[in-house]
């Protein structure tokens, strides 16, 4: 390139000056470009960081579990397994029906309870209790669980998820607030 510049017939002075100008370490244009880029990097961070924080907040938050009443103990006769429903403790006004969470309560004897999540441990479908054969069956892929929640047959990798529970002033309470999955089972399972 240099050769062409020097041998060009239009007067070499001109091309040399241009070349010299661009070779200078900091030209006015160069400085402005760098300043502009730097300023915009700061501006992008000012917007980007809060945006990112807004988005990731939904999965960095701890599950907000709290104690919820399933009703008085009399609702659960001894030796039986009944469906109970509680309202999600972190529900929002527009949650509608989805805030109502069902679970299975098994009362073994006067003071012994088991509370199972409705979700099959295979893929989360709602399991149904069959009193006669004393089994929980899943309608999706045919998983079955015994009355104590342990795995009986089919594809589920483990027994039913169990809620941590306690009896307080004549009421059965469970610790709930998140959808149980294999990655995040319920407290009782841990």
């Amino acid at each position: 390139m240099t050769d062409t510049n020097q041998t060009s017939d239009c007067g070499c002075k001109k091309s040399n000056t241009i070349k010299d100008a661009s070779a200078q370490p900091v030209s006015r244009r160069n400085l402005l470009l760098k300043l502009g880029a730097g300023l915009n990097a700061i501006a992008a961070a000012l917007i980007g960081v809060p945006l990112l924080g807004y988005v990731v907040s939904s999965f960095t938050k701890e599950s907000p579990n709290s104690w919820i009443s399933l009703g008085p103990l009399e609702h659960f006769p001894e030796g039986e397994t009944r469906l109970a429903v509680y309202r999600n403790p972190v529900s929002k006004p527009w949650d509608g029906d989805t805030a109502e969470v069902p679970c299975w309560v098994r009362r073994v004897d006067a003071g012994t309870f088991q509370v199972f999540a409705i979700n099959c441990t295979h893929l989360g479908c709602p399991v149904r209790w069959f009193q006669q054969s004393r089994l929980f069956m899943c309608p999706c892929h045919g998983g079955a669980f015994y009355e104590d929640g342990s795995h009986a047959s089919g594809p589920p990798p483990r027994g039913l998820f169990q809620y941590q529970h306690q009896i307080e002033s004549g009421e059965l309470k469970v610790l709930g607030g998140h959808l149980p999955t294999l990655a995040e089972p319920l407290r009782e399972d841990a």
Partner: protein
Amino acid sequence: MLRSIALWLDERLHIKKLFESTAGHKVPPSTNSWFYVFGSGTLLCFVLQILTGTLLAFVYVPSTSQAWTSLQYLNNEQFLGWFLRAVHNWGSIFMVGIMSAHLVQTFLFGAYKYPRELTWVSGCLLFFCTLGMAFTGQILRFDQDAYWGLGIGASVMGRVPFIGAQLVHLMLAGSTIAGETLSRFFTLHVFVVPGLIIALLSLHLRLVLTKGINEYPKPGSLVRKESYVAEYEELVEKTGVPFVPNVIGKDLIFSGFLIIAIVTCALVFGPQGPSGPPDPTLIHTAPKPDFYFLPIYAILALLPAYMETFLLLVAPVIGIAILVLLPFYSGTGEKSYRRRPMAVIVVLLAFLTAGLLAYLGTYAPWSPHMEAWTDASTPAAYVKGRTPLQLQGAILIQNKQCRNCHSLGGDGGLRGPALDTVATRLTRDQLIRQVIQGSGNMPAYGKNLRPAEVTALVSFMQTLRPSYEPAAMDSTQPAIGR
């Protein structure tokens, strides 16, 4: 007068130049083929989806408490709301279908080879985005299937090691399926994914213009990196015809029939759903995905448990990589499917597999029939002339929900084997063992049946064989008085 206005406008807007470099660009005449209409067909479906989707959003309420009601309103109250929902639904089905045809055609015609690698990659990404639209759209039809479908999605995410819990929270926008979940899927379906599609589509179309459309491949004419571009340019230079008006005719006819087909399906079959309200306490439901995802639904049921997590999480990554990276390991050489038997076999196998799995998914033989124990009748011949003990067994087989998984006379679940001829397969001892201990997919009933009940049940099952077939015998115990 008109001509002078047109010339004035063209001088300012450079319409002629724009036309010559886009719609009027020159293509090889061999591309004037019925095999080359699927791309424009997919684009048309996308435009139709944007149009109907935008109009549906005028009425639809993306709120967990009201989405279902607003869908009912669209179906029953809003003037022609049902029609728009039906067109949007059938538009999505046709879009996935035509897009698959486009994918198969470009694969079989070697269109992904040098120098059109990025056209293929962007097309694959468009395909995944479209499937993403199908999945998120299914969630926006916020009914029972959508609710439990989200539960299934969360359960799959929950199997990812280390970051499973975070992924579940990211997908559900919180710790449960609730208000923010639907908002998240609405945002994805209406803003994020369509935006991505438009961006990718621009790239895809730009590449079609810059790298040219693939000529109809001739068997034996190989792609070489050194010479292909020059050969193609020469072909277009010498024989090329403008896409508009010379080649677009077939696209127009196909597009016309496509719209007619979508509208006909919409008119005949109407909108899909919503099914029951998304109330989690209504647990008497068996969620099922829309038909595009039936193969995945089926494979989840049919995989052995030990390889399930691996295949759920790793196989899709490998599959997507094989598809997307295709031009980078098979970028030159033969294009014509006539000389690429493996390519044809791969396509046939893929269709057979997906088709078979989808077919199985439609009647889900692995799902128990949850009402069969009270619904399914017992064939009269099976109870005629039986002893009281055997009859007691016949009642137990209903009461203990055996029929949910086992059929009699073709009625009942298909999860376990039909019991009509069970006595020809299993001896008395084997029947007792099977009932008490279970195995594989059958729970052990030992805990839940009294010995007398097992005796009655087995004595009934021993009668379940045709008169012309002998009962099963224990080969180690020769039939002494049996």
